[in-house]
């Protein structure tokens, strides 16, 4: 199999050398194809691996780290295959999706264990810095079994960064974090992206917009789109989105929305929430608060309909 010309690799910003190269990788389990013929490159900066739940993002990340062997295709990190070459892990930090961490260890012990296994020279300094970086100093001596989901995520990030890796891979790192923690993590991702190759998986489009300049979209195990975030976002915006809104006067809100040019259709669901289909997402999100204020309606909750997100991603595959 010929290695691809990295200049043409999907996902690589022109002019940048890719750190990670996935060349026609596939993964199947019997008859089930989890990832199909994906060729991508990831270079310095923050790249988001985007796709709906079950699209194959975690499988791609696991193949990149060497946890899974591809059924076909090759993976190189700094020109080396990660599988069967433990020395490669000196330059890689992974925050993987699994919530469970050794519950009997304290946060500090867990980060310290990772530092020892990475043979970090100034152990105590590196451990303290990594814990401070994720703002976990106050809870570092508590057992992980007593941590909240957000705290476990942050201590996993500290453990992944303790050896100062040049490649950072994160599988849904914002899961379980409250808004303040999310903001902090997003800022951290941006900061890491200035000097490292960072690949972050997520299924939330709006979240990705805040930290990634480059995205790779995976749908049904196939590469749907890759490249500059804004260009792909513009393509996504031309497709209809469904948004679910809970308010104190749903029927008045539905009537107000019918007259808005960005609205394609409006209906009520069983829980008396308004479900709006829009063909201009940005226009809709701009118009919604204005309409609500005018009609004296209080908006209680706004969320994208999950099937709509899947349909948006599928549209990229078709388009």
């Amino acid at each position, binding site marked *: 199999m010929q290695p691809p010309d990295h200049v043409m690799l999907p996902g690589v910003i022109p002019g940048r050398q890719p750190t990670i190269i996935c060349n026609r990788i596939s993964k199947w389990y019997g008859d089930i194809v989890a990832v199909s013929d994906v060729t991508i490159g990831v270079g310095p900066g923050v790249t988001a691996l985007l796709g709906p739940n079950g699209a194959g993002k975690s499988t791609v990340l*696991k193949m990149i780290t060497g946890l899974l062997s591809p059924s076909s295709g090759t993976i190189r990190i700094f020109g080396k295959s990660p599988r*069967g070459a433990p020395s490669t892990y000196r330059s890689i930090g992974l925050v993987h999706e699994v919530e469970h961490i050794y519950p009997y260890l304290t946060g500090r012990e867990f980060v310290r264990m990772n530092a020892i296994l990475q043979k970090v020279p100034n152990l105590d300094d590196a451990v303290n810095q990594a814990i401070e970086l994720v703002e976990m100093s106050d809870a570092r001596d508590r057992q992980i079994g007593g941590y909240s989901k957000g705290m476990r995520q942050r201590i996993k990030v500290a453990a992944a960064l303790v050896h100062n890796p040049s490649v950072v891979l994160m599988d849904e790192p914002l899961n379980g974090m409250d808004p303040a923690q999310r903001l902090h993590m997003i800022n951290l991702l941006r900061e890491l992206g200035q000097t490292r190759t960072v690949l972050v998986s997520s299924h939330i489009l709006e979240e990705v917009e805040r930290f990634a300049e480059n995205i790779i979209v995976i749908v049904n195990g196939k590469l749907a789109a890759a490249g500059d975030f804004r260009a792909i976002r513009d393509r996504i915006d031309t497709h209809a989105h469904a948004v679910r809104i809970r308010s104190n006067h749903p029927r008045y809100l539905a009537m107000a929305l019918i007259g808005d040019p960005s609205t394609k259709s409006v209906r009520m669901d069983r829980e008396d929430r308004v479900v709006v289909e829009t063909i201009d997402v940005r226009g809709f999100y701009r118009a919604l608060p204005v309409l609500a204020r005018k009609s004296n309606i209080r908006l209680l909750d706004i969320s994208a309909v999950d099937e709509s997100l899947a349909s948006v991603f599928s549209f990229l595959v078709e388009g």
Partner: protein
Amino acid sequence: MRNFVWRIAPIFLLTVRQFSGGKAVRAVLGLALVPTLFAAVYRVNPDVNRPRRFLDDSILQVLLPTILPLAALVLATATFGDEIEDRTLPYLVLKPVSRLKIVFEKMMASVIVSTPIIALGVLISWFLVFMRDSRDNTDMLWATLASVVVGVVLYTCVFQLLSLLIRRAILASIVYSLVWETVLGRFIPGLRYLSIRQVVTSVYTSVLDDRRLGTNNAFSTGGALIGAVVVCVIAIALSTWRLNKLNIE
């Protein structure tokens, strides 16, 4: 001291912490106390002329063929089994650490935790049986402890390998202990040379050097020790190879 062990053998210490106070250790303790229970029953109604014979029977018929493999398998299959089930194995394998080191430290943790627990059961049993016997019976204690150490190391190496090869390692280990070594061993004499139980029994009888036992050893002392080393080396090498090839979900 603890910091020093963390630095030298972090996976060993992590695995010891994994076991400490857990269900698996309580199960090993329960198994280790079965011979003690027999010894206590013997103490209630002792046959004063035959304490050595009683302990020999307990060791050769209960401890070495049944208790020892079952106690070793509980921890040996948990070393990697728990990490695979809890999906924490990536925290160890995605590090610049050789797979051999991971396998070896895990194996040592299992041996270091299970051996003293089983030895404690042996010690209490020995004390109960010989507490009113004025003769020197320490030879039986040393022989039993030697066979326990060799048995725990061997069973741990083999059962740890099984836990990396198949999902139902506990079931496979029980089948190996009870079917392969016990039932098939009786009908196919050649299997004695492929039996950990035979190695362990040979160590016991060789160290004891008591002709009254009349056991038919498959191995001499040297043969048993060489066999034990060969089994350990092969099991550790295969475990290392398997850990390298393992797909971790």
